[in-house]
């Protein structure tokens, strides 16, 4: 009966209840949509980094990450790469020579990270081939180089221009090689485009004097979520090698993702706090308007716990109607926008420099529904407490005669 009374009470002033329900729904939608937006943003950032640069797992000589020494190659890399390719959980493998050097045009020079790749292998693992905006992705001619748009602008060169790469060889001597720009790429990370160049690994191996040895084996998994498990397996399998997941290779990105989560919960908390005051205000009004009724209820024998529960129930019910409405609103909008994305081209330069895409595809994590719904329901209960305490303070003899 208490449920029935509470339920009917919330519909006594339909407009007021609808306003509260709407504010719960809109508040929840705002918070959840923001979460979906930032999750989409963060996921895309990771995807971009994984696809262009990091892949899911990388294997190195343990000495390599410290100073990227030319001699810190992986022993028997070709055999290892072949073994990895046989793993059904692995989608693709690419062996890379990685070194740093200078790139020079006729007018200027810049520091770069040189990736010596097997073009066909790299295609299976990175998106660079599809990011080509001018020219082609390695046509098969000798001494081809693929460089980023940003670097092209910096060096003042164009497609088919000749550039020179200077780097330290295995013997410690400075070596230079002349290359022709075969293709210009533009990834979604302008920072990456500015410092990364791709050449053929055979040619780089010869120039470096490392032969067929490589510095890095990049692994793309069929399911990126299994990165930690597969990494653990290969770490045990190859104890002499350094096996790292993308989050270990780019801890700042992993940290940023974690930070997004925390910021989102803080934002949700702020929204719920604002919502709480709205509900308190409405419930307080409802309680004060019904002072005579509360007086009568206590007069005829409704005890204080029942009065308290009734008021809190009303607040809880109002919110519980708003929660599914908010979730539905979020699902619909995210469903729509996850197909077409949110175009933030106006901020493309800033977004690109941080490695974010211009078009953000919001993404919902269904696991967030429960904690957010519980947080909202808890807010509703909290919001009902003060008005309920207020109702308990009425003196029946006085309250009955209130107009």
């Amino acid at each position, binding site marked *: *009966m208490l449920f*029935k*009374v509470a339920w*009917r*009470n919330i*519909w*006594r002033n339909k407009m007021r209840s609808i306003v509260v329900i709407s504010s719960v729904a809109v508040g929840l939608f705002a918070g959840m949509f923001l979460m979906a937006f930032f999750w989409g943003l963060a996921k895309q950032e990771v995807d971009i980094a994984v696809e262009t640069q990091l892949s899911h797992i990388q294997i190195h000589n343990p000495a390599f990450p410290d100073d990227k020494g030319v001699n810190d190659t992986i022993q028997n890399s070709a055999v290892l790469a072949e073994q990895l390719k046989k793993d059904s959980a692995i989608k693709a493998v690419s062996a890379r020579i990685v070194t740093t050097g200078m790139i020079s045009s006729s007018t200027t020079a810049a520091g770069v990270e040189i990736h010596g790749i097997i073009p066909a292998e790299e295609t299976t693992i990175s998106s660079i081939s599809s990011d080509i905006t001018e020219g082609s992705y390695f046509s098969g001619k000798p001494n081809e180089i693929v460089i980023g748009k940003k670097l092209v602008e910096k060096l003042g060169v164009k497609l088919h221009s000749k550039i020179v790469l200077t780097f330290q060889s295995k013997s410690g001597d400075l070596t230079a090689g002349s290359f022709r720009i075969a293709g210009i790429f533009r990834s979604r990370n302008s920072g990456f485009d500015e410092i990364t160049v791709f050449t053929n690994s055979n040619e780089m191996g010869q120039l470096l004097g490392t032969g067929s040895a490589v510095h890095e084996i990049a692994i793309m998994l069929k399911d990126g979520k299994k990165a930690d498990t597969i990494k653990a397996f290969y770490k045990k399998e190859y104890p002499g090698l350094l096996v790292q997941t993308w989050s270990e290779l780019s801890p700042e990105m992993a940290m940023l993702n974690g930070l997004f989560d925390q910021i989102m919960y803080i934002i949700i908390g702020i929204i719920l706090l604002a919502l709480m005051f709205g509900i308190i205000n409405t419930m307080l009004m409802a309680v004060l308007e019904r002072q*005579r*009724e509360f007086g*009568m*209820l*206590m*007069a*005829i*024998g*409704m*005890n*204080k716990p*029942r009065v308290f529960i009734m008021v809190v129930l009303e607040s809880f019910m109002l919110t519980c109607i708003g929660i599914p409405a908010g979730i539905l609103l979020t699902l619909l909008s995210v469903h729509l926008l996850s197909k077409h994305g949110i175009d933030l081209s106006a901020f493309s330069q800033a977004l690109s420099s941080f490695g974010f895409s211009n078009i953000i595809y919001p993404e919902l994590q269904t696991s967030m529904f429960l904690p957010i719904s519980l947080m909202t329901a808890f807010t509703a209960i909290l919001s009902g407490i003060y008005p309920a305490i207020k109702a308990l303070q009425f*003196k*029946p*003899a006085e309250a*009955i*005669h209130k107009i």
Partner: protein
Amino acid sequence: MNNIIETHNLSKIYNPDTVPVNAVNGVDLHIEEGEFTALVGPSGSGKTTLLNLIGGLDYPTTGDVKIDGVDITKMSENKLIDFRLHNIGFVFQAYNLIPVLTAAENIEFVMMMLKKTKQERDLRVRELLAEVGLTDKSKNRPTELSGGQQQRVAVARALASKPRFILADEPTANLDSKSTANLLDIMAKLNIEDKMTFIFSTHDQRVIDKARRIVTLVDGKIVSDTKQ
């Protein structure tokens, strides 16, 4: 006959620290089981305050109120609520039904608080609605009932817990003549047939005429107490 209600030197002073008002001033009153008593007097004479004190809706400044020998003025607020639920029926001037419940549900509500079974509740609701002549209005909400009908539902609700007595504060003040007569007939019948004790506060001569005992209050004091 047993005294169902006894008050001794009962006083209620409002605003004792600022402008003291002696709403009830040293009232000694005994009500026997089965009485049909009207508290009369001019406005501000203390009728409602005395009813509130007898009904445990307010605490006196001095004196005590005994219901069946139990001093309710010593009870905590929570115990008093429970005591009222089990022992006292209330009828208010403004009906004060729960607006979101139907006539039947309003009556049932009290029995729900008494934790009666569904079967017991249904049976009693039917009995009471029949007693107040509102069987056909059981599903109507208060806004769909006339003032007289609402007050009859209020009487039925007051009877739902089978209380020791019913306190009615100006029950006919908002009713027309026909509804007043109807309500008085029902209450008189309950008093005679079921020996239900009624205590009214009233200005209404029609109620006074029906009462078998008339207690007149002036300035919070009993100035006359007559049986007719």
